[in-house]
């Protein structure tokens, strides 16, 4: 198995996402693809509006944790394929910063798997974000 690649610099393009969907057509055993796309929201805070988010990651540890989550998802659910990609650096409002696509024979387990994977990513992967507002100010997000 080739080494998984989990990060993309900047926003995840619709072209990338459509490519992710398109390459599964040849596998006729698949009955369900469930996709989660995380989008940068233009939240308003104290009259300021979020313009972009800057993501920073501890790449070697994050790659390892993504791989662990992937392995756990395959152990728990009857998945055929799983793709995870997260942005690093700047992503503007309305752009996509996280894409997860789980594919399997049937929808029910695929929905469950996707929920598990996204929650685990939020909880376990060392990624941080800083909101940049329309007035140029910046704030690190604490969850």
């Amino acid at each position, binding site marked *: 198995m080739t080494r998984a690649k989990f990060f993309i610099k900047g926003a995840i393009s619709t072209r990338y996402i459509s490519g992710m969907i398109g390459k599964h057509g040849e596998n006729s055993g698949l009955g369900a693809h469930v996709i989660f796309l995380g989008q940068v929201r233009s939240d308003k805070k104290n009259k300021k509006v979020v313009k972009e988010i800057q993501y*920073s990651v501890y790449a070697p*540890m994050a790659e390892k944790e993504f791989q662990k989550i992937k392995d756990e998802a395959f152990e728990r659910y009857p998945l055929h394929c799983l793709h995870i990609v997260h942005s690093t650096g700047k992503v503007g409002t309305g752009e996509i910063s996280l894409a997860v696509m789980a594919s399997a024979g049937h929808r029910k387990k695929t929905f469950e798997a996707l929920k598990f994977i996204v929650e685990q*990513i*939020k909880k376990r*992967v*060392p990624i*941080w*974000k800083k909101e940049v507002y329309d007035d140029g100010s910046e704030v*690190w997000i604490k*969850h």
Partner: protein
Amino acid sequence: MSVRILFFGYLVEKTGRSSMHINNHNLVSDSEGLKKFLYSEFPHLEGQIFKIAINRELINKKREINDGDEVALMPPYAGG
């Protein structure tokens, strides 16, 4: 050899840097010693919430730090 320290998220602003090397390993021979050392170097760090990873493994109690280790100080994650 030295101990490499990495800072992430808002800890970068608290310390004014994203990494540093500590050449005198005796100053930071375990995680508690490291915290003490960093709090004296960077007073703004004290009271901040962060986890520590040694060589990319999270620790949840006092651990030995060896010469050549990479130690990361990580505030709560905010991916997605």
